């Protein structure tokens, strides 16, 4: 790839970044309901976001810059298998529609800010709260770091190398999320999403006509995979179950992360969440078309050393430089929105479930906001240091593990909304069993997300996160039964009908 700076593209990129800084600062004054800076204001925007702002915010932090770079890169590398992101981001919405309004209501009624708050409110168990909170923060950190991978890809396509541009971009992120809280990314998400829609619609409308139509794009990709001897534009039978379980497991995990939950909790009603479950699939359509940029890379005969360069190189090769600059600005800003929401989500967890739980239980709402602001800064600096000083592969592996880890919190966060029968020790046993077994499988499989299970003549390969969730549920069920049996036996031996 060329390393010569493209000044027109850089100029447009910088202009949009300056716009983001201005919008980010103005956001702190936007839709304020009270002058007080407390955690509900800073971390959840006062739970005031309506349907459209929630749509932009959740769309902006669920479909991240990393997604825009990585999904086409994976499709470019392996073909149809990389497309699991599409069924994943479809089936997530029936789940969101059914579960998230119930979770929103539980959080609203008791003033909860995080999933771990909900868990503590329901079970009254500090150990379970801590396990859920710790899992959430650890799973989110590498996700923030990966947003920088998207940023690096567009910066280097602009010819901007080295650490300085990345540090400047991060300073923008840190300052606006510090001063504006969730309102900053919410307002910037509107700008970012409109830009991304323009870029992707232009790409899917214009690029195929330059490359001879979609038929030719699929044919070119098919031939490239055949020449390479791996991958393909259809799945191999052995990939059916991994494909489906990756989609299902990712869908169940997606809204357990602090950043997606922050978007849900910041909305103003359960109905806002329901209507978003119907509107957010518009982004999925975009993602499906975006994924095809990977095949367009084959049709355009791109020669990239790093798969993550496919999208930037495609735009550089097929569009005038001003439009490439616009697209890169969209992706760059697209990295800032989720990175801000993720660090705010992680900071909310730190403040509520570590600081308030263990350091200062008597903390005031204003004090919570101060702690959270500093925590978000610390999280962002941590992510920047990870990217600057550790191999990117390290963040990728951690993010892979993070998806499996966060999925294990689902029973603790969700089951209590529907049943009063479970107790904290059972959920904690299941959670720990799921985390331990999943980590062990992924580690022993050479840091791959697919595990092979053989039971007698039955054998199957499936997403490790889902396998670990199954183990989690079995342990949860067994401990629950043991406790129930123990309780009823104790009841019999007392032979006094104390309870009805």
């Amino acid at each position, binding site marked *: 790839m060329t390393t010569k700076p493209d000044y027109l593209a850089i100029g447009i990129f910088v202009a949009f970044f300056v716009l983001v800084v201005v919008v980010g600062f103005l956001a702190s004054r936007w839709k304020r309901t009270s002058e007080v800076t407390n955690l509900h204001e800073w971390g959840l925007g006062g739970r005031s976001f309506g349907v459209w702002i929630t749509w932009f915010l959740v769309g902006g932090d669920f479909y991240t810059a990393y997604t825009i770079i990585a999904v086409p890169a994976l499709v470019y590398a392996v073909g149809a298998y990389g*497309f699991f992101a*599409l069924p994943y981001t479809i089936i997530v919405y*029936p789940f969101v529609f059914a579960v998230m309004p119930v979770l929103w209501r539980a959080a609203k009624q008791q003033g909860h800010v995080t999933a771990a708050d909900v868990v503590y409110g329901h079970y009254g168990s500090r150990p379970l709260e801590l396990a859920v909170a710790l899992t959430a923060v650890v799973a989110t950190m590498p996700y923030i770091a990966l947003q920088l991978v998207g940023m690096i890809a567009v910066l280097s396509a602009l010819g901007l190398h080295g650490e300085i541009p990345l540090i400047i971009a991060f300073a923008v992120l840190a300052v606006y999320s510090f001063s504006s809280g969730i309102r900053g990314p919410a307002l910037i998400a509107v700008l970012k999403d409109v830009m991304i829609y323009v870029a992707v619609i232009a790409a899917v409308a214009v690029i195929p006509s330059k490359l001879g139509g979609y038929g030719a794009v699929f044919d070119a990709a098919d031939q490239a995979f055949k020449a390479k001897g791996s991958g393909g534009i259809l*799945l191999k039978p052995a990939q059916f179950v991994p494909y489906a379980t990756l989609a299902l497991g990712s869908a169940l995990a997606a809204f357990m992360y602090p950043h997606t939950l922050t978007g849900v909790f910041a909305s103003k009603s359960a109905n806002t969440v329901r209507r978003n479950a119907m509107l957010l699939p518009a982004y999925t359509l975009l993602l499906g078309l975006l994924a095809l940029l990977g095949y367009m890379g084959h049709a355009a005969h791109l020669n990239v050393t790093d798969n993550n360069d496919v999208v930037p190189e495609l735009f550089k090769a097929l569009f005038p430089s001003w439009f490439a600059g616009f697209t890169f600005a969209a992706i760059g800003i697209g990295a800032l929105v989720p990175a801000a929401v993720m660090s705010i989500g992680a900071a909310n967890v730190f403040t509520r479930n570590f600081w308030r739980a263990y350091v200062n239980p008597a903390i005031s709402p204003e004090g919570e906001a101060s702690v959270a602001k500093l925590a978000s800064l610390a999280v962002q600096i941590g992510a920047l240091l990870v990217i600057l000083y550790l191999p990117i592969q390290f963040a990728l592996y951690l993010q892979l593990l993070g998806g499996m880890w966060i999925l294990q919190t689902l029973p603790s966060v969700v089951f209590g909304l529907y049943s009063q029968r479970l107790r904290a020790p059972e959920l904690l046993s299941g959670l720990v069993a799921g985390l331990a077994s999943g980590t062990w499988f992924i580690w022993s499989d050479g840091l791959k997300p697919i595990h092979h299970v053989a039971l007698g003549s039955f054998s199957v390969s499936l997403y490790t996160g889902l396998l670990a969730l199954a183990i989690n549920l079995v342990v949860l069920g067994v401990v629950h039964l043991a406790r129930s049996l123990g309780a009823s036996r104790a009841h019999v031996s007392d032979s006094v009908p104390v309870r009805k």
Partner: protein
Amino acid sequence: MMNTNRSRPRFIQLLLLVPFLGLLDAGLYNLAEPKLLGFPFFYWYQLLWVPITVFVIWIVYRSMPHDD
């Protein structure tokens, strides 16, 4: 917590499982033909599930009380 005991909305909510049935058996749609606008079946079939899923959720949405 589903804020209603009426059986009709609860039954309709089972519709939310339909997208899972349509998408989680990849062997069902791992086909090149028939093509649509140059897209192999595998791709346009899955993209088609985006509007179908929105429609299914909308059916469930309108069957339930919007209490807020």
